[in-house]
């Protein structure tokens, strides 16, 4: 597959956007300026970016508790995102959902989900709708390595395979579910070993290499779009920060060495090196991208901070369509 310089620039922008957004959110969170729990995507940017760069607007994205990256990559508006994370009425969910439920249905991002595996059957339902309507949209769903141990994952991926739905399953294997190493919770080397049990193709990609992810996603999505059914992508990646928030509190569950080793292969640094080497962008241009995106994120913070909280009346609104 030929990956054009436009694609590289695009991948880079998506990743930087995620990184800048997440770093900012993390800082606000650590400074107690943001309520609730947040699960940051820092370190895993290449996965959402590589996959979403291979999608069209009408393609759906199913997400997880670690969903900011998916929404940013799908084209989400960082201002409305930041406002949502801060519980403001101008947020995507008008403050009712927060980090764990952030969504943009106009972009067909079907929402982060607080239940591990809970978003997978829903994304499969969207894939069904695509087939039902005769549309060639594809539904792509992200989930963690840990999520592949839960029943909803199994049922949903099997159903997609049995009904030959246009769905792509993307496992973000960061080797941990919260504080527990993956290998303690499954007796397989690669999560992709599960794909064969559903009769669908599976592939492992370097989840720190956005281009590799993009290539794998492009292939899987094209296959699904052509009516050949679902595929599985395992992206080997790593989260830099704690399971939720930034700093690890309590028991230390990962070696500093391990974190350092992964950080050496930082997905943004990797693509930037490539872009410079290939003469697609100069260091200055890349820095300009960072600055421009940082300005967007700063504006988002400003927007979020200056936005009002939702009105008390809204508490009982939108429980039902058409009122109670």
């Amino acid at each position, binding site marked *: 597959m030929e990956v054009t310089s436009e694609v590289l620039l695009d991948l880079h922008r998506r990743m930087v956007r995620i990184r800048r957004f997440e770093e900012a959110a993390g800082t606000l969170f650590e400074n107690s300026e943001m309520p609730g729990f947040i699960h940051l995507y820092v370190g895993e940017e290449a996965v959402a970016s590589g996959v979403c760069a291979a999608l069209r607007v009408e393609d*759906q994205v199913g997400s997880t508790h670690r969903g900011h990256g998916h929404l940013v990559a799908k084209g989400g508006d960082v201002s409305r995102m930041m406002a949502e994370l801060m519980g403001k009425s101008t*947020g*995507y*969910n*008008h*403050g*009712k*959902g927060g980090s764990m*439920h952030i*969504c943009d*249905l106009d972009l067909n991002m*079907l*929402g982060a*989900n*607080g*239940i591990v595996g*809970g978003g*997978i*059957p*829903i*994304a*499969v*339902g*969207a*894939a*069904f*709708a*695509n*087939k*039902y*309507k005769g549309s060639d949209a594809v*539904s792509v769903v992200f989930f963690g390595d840990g999520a592949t141990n839960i*029943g*909803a994952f199994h*049922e*949903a991926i*099997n*159903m997609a395979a*049995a*009904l030959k739905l246009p769905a792509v399953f993307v496992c973000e294997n960061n080797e941990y579910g919260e504080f527990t190493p993956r290998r303690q919770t499954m007796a397989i080397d690669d999560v992709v070993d599960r794909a064969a049990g559903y009769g669908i193709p599976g592939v492992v990609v370097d989840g720190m290499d956005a281009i590799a992810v993009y290539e794998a996603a492009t292939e899987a999505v094209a296959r699904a779009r052509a009516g050949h059914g679902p595929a599985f992508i395992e992206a080997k990646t790593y989260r830099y920060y704690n399971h939720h928030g930034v700093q690890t509190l309590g028991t230390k569950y990962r070696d500093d060495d391990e974190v350092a080793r992964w950080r050496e292969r930082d997905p943004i640094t990797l693509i930037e090196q490539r872009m410079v080497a290939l003469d697609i962008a100069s260091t200055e241009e890349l820095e300009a991208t960072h600055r421009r995106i940082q300005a967007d994120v700063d504006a988002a913070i400003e927007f979020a901070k200056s936005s009002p909280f939702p009105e008390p009346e809204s508490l009982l*609104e*939108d*429980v*039902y*369509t*058409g009122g*109670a």
Partner: protein
Amino acid sequence: MTATDTASATELRNLGYGAAFTETLRQIMAEDEDVFVAGEDVGAAGGVFGSFTGLQAEFGPMRSVDTPISEQAIVGLGIGAAVSGLRPVVDLMFMDFVLVAMDQIVNQAAKLKYMFGGNTSLPMTITTNAGAGLSAAAQHSQSLEALLCHVPGLKVVMPSNSHDVKGLLTASIREDNPVVFIKHKRLLGQKGHCPEALFEIPLGRASISRPGDDLTIVTYGRMVSESLKAASVLAGEGVDVEVIDLRTLQPVDTDAIVASVQRTNHCVVAHEAVRFGGLGAEIASHVQEHAFDYLDAPVGRVGAPFSPVPFTPALESLYVPDAARIAEGVRSTLARS
């Protein structure tokens, strides 16, 4: 095609409760391409209770989908399809299996719209079959509506007769919110008047199955006919009972209940579900709160005792509430006034 709540008197068409369900589905599927059914054995086999018979032949396998045995994925299929603009009807064969899919129903379907700040709607109907009396034992006999009625975001419906099956199913499928539509297994073969044309019974509106002055029985599902039997017996004892059929269990038509009790000054709630923590508790609570000064006696409750459903008919017949126990409940409530 749509008539209103009350069917015209000229139609006197008898149809089984289960057959009314199938006929309604067929008519709705014919009029609305976005409606499809999915579930275990609902396609080629037409469902284990025959509720989906003929639909696959008429509408094809994409609109009448045989799924794997995967209740979570079945409900998820419905959610994802509904969010994508379709109007799915997904089937969970026995109400006991609702428990297998509880996360998708309660954490996902019920909450999605609210969590999303209103940015979606979820026109999905979950159909299922509840109730004891077939010696199907503890995992195939439950009435679990109370679990669902406690969950904001869901609507819950349980028809007592063929006519209401049609009117309520039509309204449920056209509803833009997740509805759990509960049939009672022992009513499936029950014949009753049912108009041919589609019509809607608005959700949240109760009906008076029998008017009366002395006491109000609030009930639903299969206990409606048992309550009517009890009412006949009690009429012979000089007691004039009003029977309210809730039809919709969430939202409950509290206005209708309170208005009736304000007139009869006595109330008994009857359901097949376990009495402790059943929907009857909510209704009794509500009635004493809103009609306190009208009540001549405490609100009585008739329901199943606090045990799983036993297999053997010898015990199951003692377990399931019936006309005799409802009548007894009415008598003891009246005795306290």
